[in-house]
């Protein structure tokens, strides 16, 4: 497994307002193949919004950051086909009624997104204490598939089991889903925790994630987008690329870079630093596929 060398593919957006742009043509493996019938489309990934978190020393705008991000998504010049939230929609609570109030308010806020479709999946804060019961009431299944313009999307749930596992039943479901598919069809996996062992001591892993990756290996074009670690991170396992998203509540330190994992404090000189969301835009020409990291605040684009 290799960490991608950021210098190999980082390009900065114009005048510092557009965020960092990542071009897939420079990746070890393309996100999409040029001959796979993939049509032009884009989607936006938001993650780890932790609605209900309320520590002003960590994020004094804890009540407003999500709404700002929604406004920023709505302000994108190129409207995404859909939006995905890769888990930890809400901050955990022992109170099931409060958890439902948080999920309801979250759903209300993101209802302002001006897109045709929004896809959800849980994080451990949403689902680990009740094995996904409340999440399911609001957003339906915790794992599912859908297809969009030639790409097969697989949403995996590695949080409803508090051990951070997919479990045998979901792995069997995944293998069944993949069994009949063309190995050249591009696959995008959406999940909360990393499927590889990024930092198990920090819970940055999926216990049986290797089995999911093993099932995906025969496919030519596989990319995983995930959240959980509250920072952008790029990694490959074999030919499979893994991209984590920033949070929309607080950033976390680089993997194992400090003795104890804790939120990076708010910097008044650089508000919202380390927070943001991502857009993914592809065309049938693989070299044009880009990941763009956007800041929370609405900017000119």
């Amino acid at each position: 497994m290799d960490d991608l060398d950021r210098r190999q593919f980082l390009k900065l957006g114009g005048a510092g307002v557009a965020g960092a742009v990542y071009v897939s043509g420079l990746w070890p493996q393309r996100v999409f193949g040029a001959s796979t019938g993939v049509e032009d489309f884009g989607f936006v990934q938001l993650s780890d919004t932790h609605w209900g978190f309320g520590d002003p020393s960590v994020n004094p705008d804890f009540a407003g950051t999500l709404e700002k991000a929604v406004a920023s998504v709505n302000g994108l010049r190129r409207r995404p086909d859909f939006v995905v939230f890769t888990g930890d929609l809400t901050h955990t609570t022992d109170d099931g009624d409060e958890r439902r109030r948080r999920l309801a308010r979250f759903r209300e806020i993101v209802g302002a997104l001006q897109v045709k479709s929004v896809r959800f999946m849980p994080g451990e804060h949403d689902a680990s204490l009740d094995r996904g019961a409340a999440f399911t009431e609001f957003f339906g299944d915790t794992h599912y598939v859908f297809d969009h313009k030639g790409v097969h999307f697989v949403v995996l749930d590695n949080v409803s089991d508090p051990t951070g596992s997919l479990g045998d039943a979901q792995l069997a479901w995944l293998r069944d889903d993949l069994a009949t598919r063309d190995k050249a069809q591009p696959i995008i996996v959406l999940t909360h925790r990393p499927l590889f062992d990024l930092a198990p001591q920090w819970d940055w892993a999926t216990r049986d994630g290797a089995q999911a990756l093993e099932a995906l290996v025969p496919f030519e074009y596989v990319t995983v987008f995930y959240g959980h670690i509250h920072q952008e991170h790029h990694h490959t396992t074999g030919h499979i690329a893994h991209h984590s998203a920033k949070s929309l509540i607080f950033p976390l330190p680089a993997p194992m870079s400090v003795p104890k994992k804790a939120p990076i404090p708010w910097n008044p000189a650089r508000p919202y630093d380390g927070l943001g969301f991502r857009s993914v835009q592809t065309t049938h020409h693989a070299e044009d596929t880009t990941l763009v990291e956007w800041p929370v605040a609405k900017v000119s684009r």
Partner: protein
Amino acid sequence: MTSRLLCAWVLAASVGLAAPAHGADRVIRVTAKRFEYAPAEITLRRGEPVVLELTSLDRDHGFRCDELGLRADVKPGEVTRVRLVPQQVGRFPFACDVFCGDGHEDMAGEIDVVE
């Protein structure tokens, strides 16, 4: 209360090979509850075989110490035994790796191996 012997995966470089507990091994009982271990600091002597007896007082927890190659599920009503023979002096953090609520991130401790 049921009991079981954990077949922990072991890094031979830092601890001795796991083996069935011997009657003479020193036993250290460790309890887990949201969001703490007791004791949170466990002092061991290098080369001395010990058995950690782990149990939970409330719900499922985990016990993970990557540097010593230890990982165990810690459940209420069960005793999970982890035998180790530390070979390396130092402080080795351990933490819960089964999400247990708002405070899970703080559920941690250290094994301090001394000469």
